[in-house]
């Protein structure tokens, strides 16, 4: 049994305070970096023994924003609610001529993927990116094919980490109507990616119940692992046809409540799950964006889960 923590991790109260002070020029950037580094280091310790490591993404305001640093003719625009949460992303405006800008890539990777140097490219880190439909939801100026093309190039550029895993986030599935043509674009995108990349590719869905058509689309994607929110979906519905060739990222840490999960209930869930998948294919995970839970609580939830397994 494994645990994986995809997506942004919550900042500690100390880092939140330091960020606030930095924004108001009360502390230096060095001071902020020290606090941020220490915060990430504590998280790294918490993940000892995990197959893939969250780098916390403390530099990321959301899953889209930093991409303007490596895409030409991109700008940050207005706020838009992040699906049905009380948090907001900024929409990115692209042009048809927007391209991956390789000049800034290495420093971008160092900053946004390697947590101020806490991690190296040799470590099994999780690289988090929005999947196509979420990318479209929070951008303007590009149709889905162009998004796929751009994301493909981004994935190639940032996935040169031999032991890492690429994890896409797709809360639009189950929440938005996705046309058959869009699903075909997504399917081709993943197939091409899998043909080119040597690292595993996961896709994390969350917040919404997945109807039959969504599940069918998801299970047929050429990804190596699929994340499911088990507070929006029943085990029965999901596991009936879940492909046993794929890893399941079981969203059992709830990001909707600060109540720490009942270990017995998680244990029961795991036992039921083992009837469908071998243990090595079950990764216990979060059911949404971990960042939306206060840090202390999230750490408690992870420690609790460690005890269960």
């Amino acid at each position, binding site marked *: 049994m494994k645990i994986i923590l995809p997506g942004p991790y919550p900042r500690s109260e100390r880092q939140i305070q330091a960020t606030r002070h930095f924004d108001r020029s009360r502390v230096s950037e060095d001071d902020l970096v020290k606090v941020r580094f220490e915060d990430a280091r504590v998280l790294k310790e918490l993940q000892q023994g995990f197959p893939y490591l969250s780098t916390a993404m403390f530099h990321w305001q959301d899953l889209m924003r930093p991409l303007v640093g490596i895409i030409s003719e991109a700008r940050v625009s207005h706020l838009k609610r992040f699906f049905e949460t009380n948090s907001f992303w900024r929409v990115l405006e692209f042009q048809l001529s927007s391209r991956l800008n390789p000049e800034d890539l290495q420093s971008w990777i160092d900053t946004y993927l390697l947590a101020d140097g806490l991690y190296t490219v040799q470590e099994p880190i999780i690289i988090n990116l929005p999947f196509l439909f979420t990318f479209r939801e929070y951008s303007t100026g590009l149709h889905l094919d162009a998004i796929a093309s751009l994301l493909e190039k981004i994935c190639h550029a940032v996935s040169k980490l031999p032991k890492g895993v690429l994890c896409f986030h797709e809360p639009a599935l189950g929440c938005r109507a996705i046309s058959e043509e869009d699903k075909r674009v997504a399917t081709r995108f993943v197939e091409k990616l899998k043909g080119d990349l040597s690292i595993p590719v996961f896709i994390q869905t969350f917040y919404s119940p997945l109807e039959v058509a969504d599940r069918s689309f998801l299970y047929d994607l050429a990804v190596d692992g699929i994340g499911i929110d088990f507070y929006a979906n029943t085990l029965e519905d999901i596991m009936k046809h879940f492909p046993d060739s794929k890893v399941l990222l079981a969203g059992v840490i709830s990001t909707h409540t600060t*109540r720490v999960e009942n270990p017995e209930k998680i244990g029961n869930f795991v036992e039921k799950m083992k009837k469908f998948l071998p243990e090595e294919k079950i990764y216990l995970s979060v059911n949404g964006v971990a960042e939306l839970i206060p840090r202390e609580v999230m750490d408690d939830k992870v420690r609790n889960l460690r005890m269960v397994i």
Partner: protein
Amino acid sequence: MKLKPLMTHEIGSLAKPSWRVKAFSGTPLNDHDIHEAKKWGERLRISDLDSLIEILSKKEGFSPADKEAILSFASLFATRLMESTGLDILWDGEQHRVEMYEYPIRQMTGFLFRGHVRSFDNKYYRKASCVDKPGFSRLFHVKEYEQISSITQHRVKIPVTGAYTLVDWSFDEYYIGAISPGEAAVRESLHHARSCFLTDVAKNVIYPNLQALCDRGAPFLQVDEPAATTKRGEIPEFISSLKTSIGDLAGKAFFSTHICFSDYTLLFPQLLELEGILDEVHFEYANRDTKELGVSAAKRTSYGILEHLRNTRFVVGLGVLDVHTDFIESKELVRDRILYACEIIKDPYRLFIAPDCGLRTRSWDVAHAKLCNLVEGRNLAAAALGIS
């Protein structure tokens, strides 16, 4: 209650002056803070300004009595600022409150603050968890209402954060129980927990507070529900929570709801169930509108939702000022936004004119200029319509 056509009001918040913020946060004041207090005090003709300056001159180490006085003065300043703009109905910019979520939660029982979570960019808010059945130990808007209504001759409108927003912006540890992930009725269980949470907050917290305000003659009560359309599957629950919150108080005061930065189409048709319960429905519009003059759909691009409100009995609260920018809307722009709305709603008695939302992200200079132009724009529109 005698209303006039195109009545003007604010929505709630105004920035807190630095001297009020620092006095409570423990940060020493500087000369600039005191200068600002003097400047605005003179501009707003605050009586007994000298006593405020004397207190502020300590710069730090304020006693509880000092803080009480500073708070009263902040409320007075903000109220006078609102009066000076010419608004018909006003509040004190929520000077007594930390902000719209934390303030009521702090007054309630059954909640514990768990830490900060991100809202957007590097902005975080302190989020609480419901750990027991929600209640309150004392009414939490009455003192505020009595203080503010005692310092102004204007009609006052009290913003009250609504049940749905309080619930949506909180975690639930109490009602949710120990729900098992993936269980057969996991969604139903979560939905039931949330409904119970919502009903209890509406019935046991919001209703009594609204009732107490009604009993004291509060004329205008605004239920703030920015979270109303967050979850598209919960519109019925939102409507139901408003019904429970207002209950048999309908008609005893003028009730409005303020919702902003949302997809308002999601509220229809269920919003119509609130006719006869809610008097005014206020939305944000200016944020998405063009800045060009004109009384056409091509110019007034964000006011299309008015079509949904046309044949209802609601007073339409019309947002005409974008609160997220220092751009000062000209009185002509405000006029045109109002005139366009009048073409749809027809009856100017059914239009109340306001900013999109609270003005706490704007400086007082900007807020004041915007609100003055709101009132002047209203007057231009009234003249164009041949009404006073």
